[in-house]
């Protein structure tokens, strides 16, 4: 089975801090990591390979340094890495990003399953996964929390909803976006890390893809950012002290409006 996992390198949110004076993002020393949701996609891809056999290819679109994310993915059990990187992709919104990734996936020989995290932690759009499946014209199941059954032809999965979950059957190839509940990612093995070190990453530019140049990067992106601003930081409020009984009384009084 050919399994593809689409990942994104993002700034580590744990490190994201706001400068209290300028009220802007402090980026110095912010480490780049694999999008937390994509870590579950990588793990699930490796588990499918362990169940069904086959090969896992990790793919990412990003700047040259995104190669590190692919090496990390190989350390976690992926077999190959493909970096899609070109200045021509700069300014891509979710439309252009999913188009570019779909073009790259079509360049790979065949695929049965495409996995990706439900969204990336920097943009939080959850639009690129569905975008890829639409460009490829394959079925999708989003917010997958469990792959119940899978074989060469079909899969049965559980899709998380606001109230619980749906059980959905799909033919393959299919794209799944996954949520945290699907698994607990393993730590990289020593063997994996050795392999990652020596792994050769395939690198594709716009010229390597069978893509319409007008649909790439900023030119191919319907949306445009016109303003960026920092929201007014929420300020800490009033502290209430006293015995458990006293603070409860006071709080109940203060919250009268909210709880009726």
């Amino acid at each position, binding site marked *: 089975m050919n399994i593809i996992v689409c990942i994104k390198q993002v700034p580590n949110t*744990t490190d*994201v801090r706001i400068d209290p004076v300028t009220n*802007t*993002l402090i*980026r110095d020393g912010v480490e780049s990591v694999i999008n*937390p*949701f994509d870590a579950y996609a990588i793990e699930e891809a490796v588990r499918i390979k362990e169940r069904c056999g086959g090969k896992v290819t990790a793919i990412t679109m990003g*700047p040259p340094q995104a190669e590190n994310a692919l090496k990390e993915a190989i350390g976690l059990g992926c077999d190959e890495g493909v970096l899609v990187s070109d200045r*021509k992709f700069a*300014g891509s919104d*979710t*439309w252009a990003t999913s188009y570019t990734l779909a073009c790259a996936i079509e360049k790979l020989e065949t695929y049965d399953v495409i996995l990706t995290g439900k969204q990336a932690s920097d943009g*939080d759009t959850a*639009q690129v*996964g*569905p975008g890829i*499946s*639409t460009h490829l014209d394959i079925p999708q*199941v*989003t*917010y997958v*929390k469990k792959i119940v059954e899978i074989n060469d032809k079909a899969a*049965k999965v*559980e*899709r*998380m*909803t606001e*109230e*619980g979950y*749906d059980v*959905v*059957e*799909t033919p393959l190839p299919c794209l799944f976006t996954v*949520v*945290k509940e699907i698994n607990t990612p393993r730590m990289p093995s020593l063997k994996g890390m050795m392999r990652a070190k020596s792994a050769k990453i395939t690198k594709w530019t716009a010229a390597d893809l069978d893509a319409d*140049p007008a649909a790439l990067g*900023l*030119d191919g992106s*319907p*949306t*445009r*950012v*016109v*303003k*960026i*601003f*920092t*929201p007014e930081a*929420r*300020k*800490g409020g*009033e502290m*209430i002290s006293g015995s*458990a009984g006293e*603070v*409860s009384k006071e*709080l*109940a009084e203060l919250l009268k409006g*909210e*709880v009726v």
Partner: protein
Amino acid sequence: MASIKVHLEKCTGCTLCVKACAFGAIHMSDRKAVIDMAKCTLCGSCVAACKFSAIEIEKAGGPKKDLSAYKDVWVFCEQKKGVIQSISFELLGEGRKLADKLGVKLCAVLLGHGMEDAAEALGERGADKVYLVDHPALKSYQDDPYTAVMVKLVEEFKPEVILCGASTIGRSLISRVAIKTNAGLTADCTGLDIDAKERLLLQTRPAFGGNIMATIIAPNHRPQMATVRHKVMQPAPVQPGRAAEIISKAYPEETFASRTRLLDIVEELTSTVNISEADIIVAGGRGMGSKENFALLEELAKVLGGAVGASRSAVDADWIPYSHQVGQTGKTVVPKLYIACGISGQIQHLIGMQSSKTIVAINKDPDAQIFKVATYGIVGDVNEIVPALTKEFKRVLNK
């Protein structure tokens, strides 16, 4: 290919662009901005931040299209088991304002089976027209038939704006529709407005976990599509007797074909309501100490008529299922009242709840981060305070 350049004669070296760049791609050299092309993503933040119009992004993107055929504001009304979801009423409330600013009609789109009465009722929520597509295949959401029907409706009636809930259904569906109709789509908006002159939808959304806000437009594509965060917009009031024009559409059978098949819908019956819908959330973290103590939160939630939320550590400790997790890897919630019990307030948790109207924090550590976002803070032992609160609210609310 698009490019970015600094007009040196206009650049004053004020460094606003340096601060605005989320990618660290700008530095000052000789008091002039220099853009590192290896890091720049052409996101446009610096262009927006520059007060001197010194930075310009040139975009190739073809001639300006004639977009005048596109009219009306549409709201995709999500239904589950035949019940219109509350997010739809919020979208109709916001959609009404946008339609009035544009001077166009507000239209609801309803896909389902046996939904005629529900369609009529949308008139009372402010819809001028309701596009209704009724078919057994639309009874429950599946990506293929819903996408196919939406694309057909968009192509025939050409709306100017489409709003959709930023829910599991909304995000899955509209992402597909946007690709198929070559439209711009902005995710999870918390603010919408209209530039009446250019007829643009101004879509404001949080990014980087809410640390920055971005306003986004789609100048040369229609419809302009946005998903909207639940509980941020005011629901449309009910206007009894107000009627909408119902436009029922039928399509050839193949439009309703689905490659995926829905086998079962499972509702997980926990004792508490769904956190995305709740107006009050009582949430617990590692500081609750044990699964038994965690149950104290359910009692308080029950008295308040709220839901129980949890931090990641409480979920990882197996005290409560993942569906209750609030934060970056869980759900983003915007209740009227959020009571955080024994939650330290790591950034990943704050991302998911800091837009709540009122936040109460109870923690034994006076330096806990959670107090920095709390409206009211109490330093103390959650295992004493939570039961005392339950008792007090029982008394106050006569329960």
